[in-house]
């Protein structure tokens, strides 16, 4: 029993795509550029070449926010989506009939269609791969050159993620949607 979350020291990100490849290799994600559990949002410099406004913190990590109040879970007509004992939003694969209501409901665009398995797939914190064999890091976290990603148990006050969240300010994405995300962006 844990409550897993992830914090991002997002300004350190150099958009190297190591996390994306690591996730695909670890979790056997389909090839194809629209098939991915995580991606990096880029905000491009604006203005003309000689007066470019660059955004040093312009690379932002996106993946399932593991909402405490998950719209996808509520939207599924087949009750295929559930929250596991570690707070991770999961899917009963056999129950999913690709109605795609969850995809429409998700404010974060976190889901994509896995055409091979005929399900909607998304980040599950490597729970059926790394976590299930007792590892304490996720694939995207461990490979990151900048160590942008801090993963751990939010209920454990001694975990690195709890410590960093108590020390530094952070924001969440689209708080107005009331989804209570468990991904935190450190400022």
């Amino acid at each position: 029993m844990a409550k897993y979350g992830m914090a991002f020291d997002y300004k350190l990100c150099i958009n190297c795509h190591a996390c994306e490849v690591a996730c695909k290799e670890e979790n056997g994600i389909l090839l194809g550029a629209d098939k991915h559990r995580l991606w990096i949002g880029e905000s491009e410099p604006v203005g003309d070449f000689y007066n470019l406004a660059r955004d040093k913190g312009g690379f932002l990590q996106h993946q399932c926010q593991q909402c405490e109040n998950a719209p996808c879970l509520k939207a599924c007509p087949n009750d295929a989506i559930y929250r596991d004992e570690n707070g991770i939003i999961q899917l009963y694969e056999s129950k999913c009939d690709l109605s795609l209501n969850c995809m429409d409901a998700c404010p974060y665009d976190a889901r994509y269609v896995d055409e091979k398995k005929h399900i909607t797939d998304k980040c599950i914190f490597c729970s059926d791969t790394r976590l299930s064999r007792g590892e304490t890091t996720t694939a995207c976290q461990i490979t990151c050159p900048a160590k942008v990603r801090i993963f751990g148990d939010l209920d454990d006050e001694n975990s690195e993620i709890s410590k960093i969240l108590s020390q530094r300010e952070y924001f969440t994405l689209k708080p107005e949607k009331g989804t209570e995300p468990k991904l935190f962006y450190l400022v």
Partner: protein
Amino acid sequence: MKKIEISRRKFLQGSVALCVYATSSPATIIPKKTTKTTITEATNIPYLCNMCRNKCAGFARVEDGVVTKLNPNQYFPKSRNMLCPKGNAGIDAIYDKDRLKYPLIRIGKRGDGKYKRVTWDEANEHIKDKLVKIFNEQKDNRSTLAYCNGEGFNKNEYIKFFGGKIGSANFLDEGSICLNTKLGATILTIGDIGEPDIAGSDFVIMAGANRYESLITPDSIDMIKADKQKLVVIEPRCTVTAIKADEWLAINPGTDLALCLAMIYITLKDELYNKEYVKKQFDDFDKLKEHILKNNYTSTWAESKTNIPAKKIEKLTKDFFTASRPLFYLGRRSVWAKNDFQFRRAMVLINALAGSINTKGGIIFGKPLKLPNEEINQPFYSNAQGRFDLDGIVYGSSKAGSWLNFREKLLNGSAPYPVKAMFIRKHNLMQNMPNIKKTKKMLEMMDLIVVLDTMPSDTAMMADVILPECTYLEREDMVVSFNRLEPSLALRNQVLKPLYESKSMQDILKGLGQKLTIPLFELSMKHDEELQESIEEMGKLEAFEDGGYNLSELYKQDISTRNKILISKTFGEKAYTSLKEKGVWYPNMEKYHKEVFNNSYVYYPEDRKFYTVNKKYRVKCHIDKLNKHGYDAMPTWRDSYDFKVPDKSFRLITGRYVMFTQSATANNIMLRDIMKTNHIWINNTVAKNLNIIEGDRVEVKSNIGKVEILAYPTNKIAPSVVFFSHGFGSNSDELEQAFGNGANDNQLIEDKMENIYGCAVMNETDVQIRKIRT
């Protein structure tokens, strides 16, 4: 609150060069079988990566004989517990379906890709027959065989075989199309190549290097992690490194030397330099001072050359020289302009003027761990002639040669003797050097081309014999010593047995050596008078053994035995065990190696790092030898260095993305997934005038060739400049992913050479662009 909302779909459309829309190329992504890891028992074997030349350390997860995941190794100071995207995609290099699997002999015309599968013995027999004929025709001039290598590992052994044992003087590697001007400029100026201590610096200038975008090394990681460090990036385009910098100064391509000269001018004029250090270490400081001041390299002058505002140059110089530990990063990879040697030398001098040598935050000499050399008995061939590729080059490196000069001398007939055979190991000549047409012509002059590689590259398609080498995960290699500030040894352990019929380089050379030893010895007996004399004196058998003619001598023992003996003898049993189990060893590793936070580690305590060492060296402002050869003994601007682009033309600049730092990963299915093809960056206003929109197909033409490529109009590049990245446009249809995908920069880049190290100049070609109407 921060607002960056880029949805998945937007990402698909807009993402920089990582575009995903379909190209008309025949490459299709075939769905790959999932390699999802499981919870079953697995072994984790320490290995060293080989997807680029950085050699990060990792652990390979092996389930039931299959590599299912590559994870970073936390023990290796050099790679700091990370793997880049290429490193992660190493699995797809082993399991690439297009891999070279069996020895092949050409049956069609050279270049048309028709080969037949043969046994190793048949391949070696074929090589032997051809080689004996060639050496016989050339009267045992062993240098009629040239050999080259593009892989970091096993290079010395490769040289020992073809240079030491076979006796050829003609060795070439990637140095002359890579970083030799930088290495040379540093050695000639401060007597050592040094290592930049980016982590220790509080003010870094980065010019002529792109450490976040083109490859990731400890320097990149240290820059990311160093808080309280100011980073100023000098770059003609707005790269990821530029985006992440505290300040980015857009510069005209090829004019960095002018910026450096102005910085030296300002520091001398305003006496900002470290006087104590200069007094102690500099030679000919007065000459430098006189030269720079006399030439009036003011900031206003530099503005006219570089397009960087004079005020910014003034400020940059002041900030640099008043920082506590400033570092002008010496760069790495590629020679951009004809003046590259002088540019790199000026950078070294700026560091020296600031006193940033052999000290924390500067260029450190450090203390690498020394590995003993395994001696071999080298035959002496009296008919073997010397190399010719360094003729006409001031310094040059006999460890790397000069590709452009070598090729030119063969093509224009000025080489003193013919080169008829070439052994090419993991060196993609048909992609990696300017003016591919010339490379093709050179290869067509050969009677025998043997390629050792893992992939059917464009170069492999020119071979007479292809020998499949196994990938880096299928072999143990000799232990390697890394780094100077935080030195360590690292070992590439074998993760899998070689797949198909591929072999390690050592096993390939062992087989070849056994096949060639007697016939080649007999050839020497026929042509080599000195050998004939020794045979008369001591008899055939003794002359053979004494002379070291057994070509396979080094391979009497296998690599793991050699490693065990060498490591245990020099560093002790414990070091060997650590290298086998953790892949890494350095003195006191168990004590020093500690996790700090979130999978970041320290490797050495501060007071045990080799920031400053006892070493005698001088900073040389004036190099007489350069003068004697008609070149500048001190960095000097010449009119021919001015940045000028003819009307309706653009300066083509090249670069690399971390997914495709070298063309070797061109066919990697996972990396192609991230970056499907390359695009040409065109200034957005210019593109608008030319009626070019994103995704348009354009023709790009230079004096030596033309390519077709998709357009990417952007505000991140100057109006007079265009850019596209290296590593694309393969011509080999054996590469399903890479074939015909994108464009190859070297089809356009003209072969221009700088004469100090004989390096190819990459950014001095002008091109014209035309939209292709469809």
